[in-house]
């Protein structure tokens, strides 16, 4: 049977196998072998028998898994590289996904379901990638992600404002009227089975639609086939209210559209600077961006904290119950 020290070194080698180059791994394991031999020799010189001395030497080094993890972290720079550097790819990817979701949102009724579904699920994929980074680096990586979220929120908020800024008030009113009229036509036709409507945002869906749609329920985590009434999207808070009105009263749908049109015209007329109606939306956009950012950062913090805790507990248990250290 193999000596416990050699078993220890084999376990260490196994943990390092997938992470270090073979030539580096051999040297690392050899260095630990020398350490164990010398420590054991010293303890035997103090009067311990060979087995006890070897066990104490292993205990002093700790679990081979913990040792290997620390070696890998050092070798890959996980313990010394700046957190923003480690999360760069994840931050850029998530920001791009948020932009993509923002840009396609007006086109939802006209895009095939697989594109919309894919875009919805890219955000949780970014979250999973973030979790993978946390497990690999065993570090607190939330702050750089918070930075990315703030940047994305500021950019999206600015885009929202730009979208809301009309070049000509009268032209903007005309456009809003055209949109409302088009929606009325769709509602009267009641194209329930239209392939586009199952994934349409609530503010363009006709009353008759009862099919559940995919919506974002938690920040970053969409729940497929959830009831739209329980759906929660910052981008469509107003639209969700209108949806409820439509569901309560089919005829109210048209009335709500008319009301929206009136509000648009009223807003343009009463605004101090008729060509800058976005000023009225500024506080709302700010708060929605702020809440959205806080929500996302909270999710990242929760994932980071839970994974670090689980890793710590697992490694403690591994050390405590490692047969080579007992």
């Amino acid at each position, binding site marked *: 049977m193999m000596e416990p020290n050699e078993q220890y070194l084999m376990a260490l080698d196994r943990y390092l196998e997938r992470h270090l180059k073979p030539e580096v791994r051999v040297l690392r394991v050899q260095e630990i072998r*020398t*350490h164990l*031999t010398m420590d054991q020799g010293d303890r035997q010189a103090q009067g311990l028998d060979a087995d006890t001395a070897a066990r104490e030497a292993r205990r*002093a*080094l700790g679990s081979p898994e913990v040792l290997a993890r*620390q*070696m890998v972290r050092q070798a890959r720079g996980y313990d010394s590289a700046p957190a923003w550097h480690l999360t760069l790819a994840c931050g850029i990817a998530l920001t791009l996904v948020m932009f993509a979701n923002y840009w396609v949102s007006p086109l939802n009724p006209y895009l095939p379901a697989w594109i919309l579904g894919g875009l919805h699920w890219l955000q949780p994929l970014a979250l999973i990638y973030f979790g993978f980074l946390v497990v690999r680096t065993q570090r607190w990586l939330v702050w750089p992600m918070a930075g990315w979220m703030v940047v994305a929120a500021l950019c999206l908020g600015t885009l929202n404002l730009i979208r809301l800024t009309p070049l000509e008030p009268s032209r903007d009113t005309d456009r809003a009227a055209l949109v409302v009229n088009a929606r009325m036509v769709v509602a009267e036709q009641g194209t329930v089975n239209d392939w586009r409507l199952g994934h349409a945002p609530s503010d363009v869906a006709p009353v008759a639609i009862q099919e559940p749609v995919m919506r974002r329920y938690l920040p970053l985590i969409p729940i497929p086939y959830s009831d739209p009434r329980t759906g929660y999207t910052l981008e469509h808070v107003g639209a969700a209210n209108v949806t409820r009105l439509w569901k309560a009263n089919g005829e109210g749908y048209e009335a709500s559209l008319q009301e929206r049109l009136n509000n648009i015209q009223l807003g343009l007329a009463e605004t101090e600077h008729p060509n800058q109606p976005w000023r009225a939306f500024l506080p709302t956009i700010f708060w929605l961006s702020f809440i959205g950012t806080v929500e996302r950062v909270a999710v990242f913090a929760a994932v980071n904290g839970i994974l670090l805790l689980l890793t710590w507990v697992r490694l403690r248990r591994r050390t405590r119950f490692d047969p080579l250290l007992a």
Partner: protein
Amino acid sequence: MRLQTDTKALVLSVLANGEKHGYGIAKAIRETSCGVLKLGEGQLYPALHALEEAGWVTAEWEAAGEQPRRIYAITAEGKAELGRRVARWSAFADGVAKVLPSALPTSEVG
């Protein structure tokens, strides 16, 4: 009680007194501190490899008996870094030393 120590400074400090292998460094730290400081799981070797990567120590394999040993030596940059770390630690320790006695009852302060 667990206190935060600067493992790299401890290692550099030991090597400033002469080159040593990994086990020798761990032993020197333990013995010099009368057993108060023991490098825990996975601390020593990752720290040594990080110091080597930073250019603060150099390492050479030495054939000695059955087991070849890796001997570490501090570089000039390592000595400069040790100076900076000692200065930082001294400032920290001075601050703690000034604050801690105020927590003791007056009669115990002397």
